[in-house]
């Protein structure tokens, strides 16, 4: 049998595929233990409703009246859901994935729990037993795509081992991992931000990637509004890279990538979101204003509850540290140490020198005709050093710095600056590469075997803490803090956020389901009705379990209820004491002794 030649290029693609597939398998194997937060539940609903529009469009096409799907009322009926909050690229994918891959029990008892009427049993490719998994699948694919891209990017600078480690460390972060498996937008926008950055980097010496940068930026705009920040980071790097132009008192040429972003970005954004079509300017403005004036939800940080911009100097300083301290206390410490080494190496790198020995070829200026070295808007990085240190620095610190501005809401914690994490992992890969080289140099020639084994051993060793910490954190990744903080308990003692939006009830569902008949009058606190419906559609909760609604009235009407621990919910506990006549919970769901959810039952003594 003839063996296929394994070229270096092919080997890299195989490793990319293995890493991405590994990410998919890992995330799919654990996502079922991860509860459904308020935001995710709304995106399930919106995704299914958007699918409803496509379904109706298909019917209208068949009936010869496609125009009916494009009337303002029809568009708003479907696309008005979750608007103007978020654009729809991911939600459409969630809806399509659900429609394609769920196991349909849709005409059964849960038929009434769908946001659009179910007319008949769906014909699907039933890959997933739970509907929620089918919704989440695209988010998981995006996370896998990021893992693959980090490897590809890292390979431009690093040998295969450290590049693969960078890819693994991207996902093996408890908070990133939490967001990577849910059908929200924070991990997907990190993927898209990295894709745009990667394309921009390549566009500096290849005009085709300039066009791709524009297209990818347009898609990013359709994923989440964080995409607005991408141009600032790229421009900052570009101006630094071409600072020689400024010294020569001439403006740097505007590169094709930026022009493409300027043209394709808004076009793709407008084209992808039918809700905008009804009144493009007014609705785009409503969307932009929605985020420029976003409410400050409650968030616990260092023992303080932040729910509005701080007013005193002391609190402004404390608030400004949030993204840096949160990064320092959530990313595995070994990853941070490696990243610090990598950052040091980039800082010490001389202009024009390779990032690492292996990158000498990829970072060298293009050879060939002298015209290829002339400054050009098509290849603006051809005649200069591409300043990789500045690039990674801006991409890492940029998202954190924006969140350090005290007037910026911080209610999402790490999720607001997840886009920095792949670059942090890239730096860690750089650090590891250096360690491997010095370890090999340090070993005597006589220990050839050890010298050969050292790179793989070191690579596995530095991945271990990240993998173990991530596994430990699941499914409560938001409450997990690293070695420096002292884990779940250390984070709680430091007054750090433990959770938000009611996802952490999932492990309690079997017990709550058994508490008949009191669970007919159930107070769900921060669990949105859309999430309760999805638990029922997934078969994890009986249809008969009730929901007495939100707030004080909800507790007053209930027989049994839960309370999520977050500082700002304290008054809900007082209502439990008042209406239930007891301070004694019947159960507390905790991780490593740290309370997350408290269950009260009326009249317990």
């Amino acid at each position: 049998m003839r063996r296929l030649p394994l070229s270096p290029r092919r080997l890299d693609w195989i490793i990319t595929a293995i890493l991405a597939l590994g990410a998919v398998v890992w995330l799919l194997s654990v996502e079922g233990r991860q509860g459904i937060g308020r935001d995710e539940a709304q995106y399930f609903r919106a995704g299914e409703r958007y699918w409803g529009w496509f379904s109706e469009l298909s019917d209208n096409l068949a009936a010869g009246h496609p125009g009916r799907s494009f009337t303002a009322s029809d568009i708003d009926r479907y696309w008005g859901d979750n608007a103007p909050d978020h654009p729809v690229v991911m939600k459409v994918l969630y809806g399509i994935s659900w429609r394609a891959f769920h196991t349909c029990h849709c005409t059964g008892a849960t038929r009434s729990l769908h946001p659009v009427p179910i007319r008949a049993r769906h014909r699907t490719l039933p890959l997933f037993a739970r509907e929620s998994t089918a919704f989440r699948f695209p988010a998981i694919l995006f996370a896998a795509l990021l893992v693959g891209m980090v490897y590809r990017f890292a390979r431009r600078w690093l040998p295969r081992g450290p590049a693969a480690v960078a890819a693994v460390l991207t996902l093996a972060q408890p908070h990133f991992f939490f967001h990577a498996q849910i059908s929200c937008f924070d991990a997907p926008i990190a993927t898209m931000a990295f894709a745009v950055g990667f394309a921009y980097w390549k566009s500096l010496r290849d005009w085709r990637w300039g066009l791709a940068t524009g297209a990818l930026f347009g898609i990013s705009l359709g994923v989440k509004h964080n995409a607005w920040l991408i141009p600032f980071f790229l421009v900052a790097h570009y101006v630094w890279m071409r600072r020689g132009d400024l010294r020569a008192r001439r403006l740097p040429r505007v590169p094709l990538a930026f022009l493409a972003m300027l043209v394709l970005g808004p076009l793709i954004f407008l084209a992808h979101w039918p809700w905008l079509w009804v009144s493009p300017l007014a609705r785009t403005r409503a969307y932009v204003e929605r985020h420029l004036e976003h409410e400050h939800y409650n968030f616990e940080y260092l023992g303080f509850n932040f729910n509005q911009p701080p007013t005193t100097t002391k609190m402004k300083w404390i608030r400004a540290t949030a993204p840096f301290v949160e990064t320092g206390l959530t990313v595995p410490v070994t990853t941070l140490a490696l990243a610090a080494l990598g950052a040091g190496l980039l800082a010490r790198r001389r202009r024009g020198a390779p990032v690492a020995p292996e990158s000498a070829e990829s970072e060298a200026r293009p050879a060939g005709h002298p015209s290829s070295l002339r400054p050009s808007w098509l290849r603006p990085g051809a005649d200069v050093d591409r300043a990789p240190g500045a690039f990674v620095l801006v991409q890492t610190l940029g998202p954190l710095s924006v969140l350090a501005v005290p007037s910026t809401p911080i209610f999402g914690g790490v999720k607001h600056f997840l886009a920095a994490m792949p670059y942090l992992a890239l730096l860690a890969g750089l650090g590891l590469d250096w360690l491997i080289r010095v370890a090999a140099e340090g070993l005597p020639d006589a220990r050839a075997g050890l010298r050969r084994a050292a790179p793989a051993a070191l690579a596995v060793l530095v991945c271990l803490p990240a993998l173990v910490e991530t596994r430990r954190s699941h499914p409560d990744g938001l409450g997990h803090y690293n070695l420096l903080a002292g884990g779940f308990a250390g984070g709680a003692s430091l007054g750090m956020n433990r959770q938000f939006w009611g996802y952490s009830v999932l492990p309690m569902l079997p017990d709550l389901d058994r508490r008949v008949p009191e669970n007919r009058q159930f107070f769900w606190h921060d669990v949105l009705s859309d999430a309760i419906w999805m638990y029922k559609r997934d078969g994890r909760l009986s249809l008969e379990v009730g929901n007495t609604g939100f707030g004080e009235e909800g507790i007053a009407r209930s027989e049994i209820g839960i309370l999520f621990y977050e500082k700002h919910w304290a008054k809900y506990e007082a209502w439990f004491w008042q209406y239930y006549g007891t301070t004694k919970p019947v159960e507390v769901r905790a991780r490593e002794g740290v309370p997350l959810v408290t269950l009260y039952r009326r009249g317990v003594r």
Partner: protein
Amino acid sequence: MTFRPSRRQLTLGAVIVVASLAVVETTVALVAPALAPTDADWVAAAAAVRAGFRPGDLIVAAPGWADPILRVHLGDLIPPEVAARMDDDRFARVWEVSQRGAHAPAAEAATATVARDERFGRLRVRLLERPAETVTYDFVAHGADARLTRRDLRGGVAACAPAGDRVNCAAGGSVLFRRQVVEVEQKLREALLTEPLANAALAIEFPAVPLGRALVIATGLHDTWMRKAARGTVEARVTVGDQTTELPVTDDDSGWTRTRIDTSARAGQTLPVRLEITSANPYDRFFAFAAEARQ
């Protein structure tokens, strides 16, 4: 002779440091879950506390975030008025159920002596005995005795009549006045809850307070969302007999502020105590206070 490491030694040192860090971090991540107290630890600790508990004892968890689990096991001994106490000073015996080397503020008094100290798995139970202040009058418990009046800018005074959870002040509208477990600084406190009046002072008078050596009053603004919604401050003063004390201004950030007023010159006397509150911007200001006359 000084040791000057070579570049090679330094770089190898870096390898060893990172490798050691990875080993330590992995080991801690694997071991740490087992360091948390188990249900059995809690059951055993609770049984020990229950066996020695006397009415009037305070039971606290350390760190404070373990309090909900403590109440699962001992909540029947921690009624709302204790769980949401004004402060810890009235408790002579404090049971502290702690983990991870933490101590509760209530158990840290310098004068406390440790009467019991036992371990139950990952939990430690200490009984601390300490001098406590005797309460001669609890204003929250006597909330129903309070008489409320409205004093307008021109000095006109009108009585306010109780109407359920509110009081109706002649020519001045209606304000909340009730005993409630309130939330101040995201902590629960049993208090009297009221609202400042627009363009007038609200006076809350307790006609016959048996005074001790001190009057301790704590104030704060109730409700996270109301503190977010408005910025107005509340000014308050306490008058004991003919002695008036200005209290610290209560605002969104002042938390639960305790003020101790020396009444030793009037100890043993029974006098009216009057709290007067005003606010230039009373919108969404829910003023909570608790007070005790102490021996």
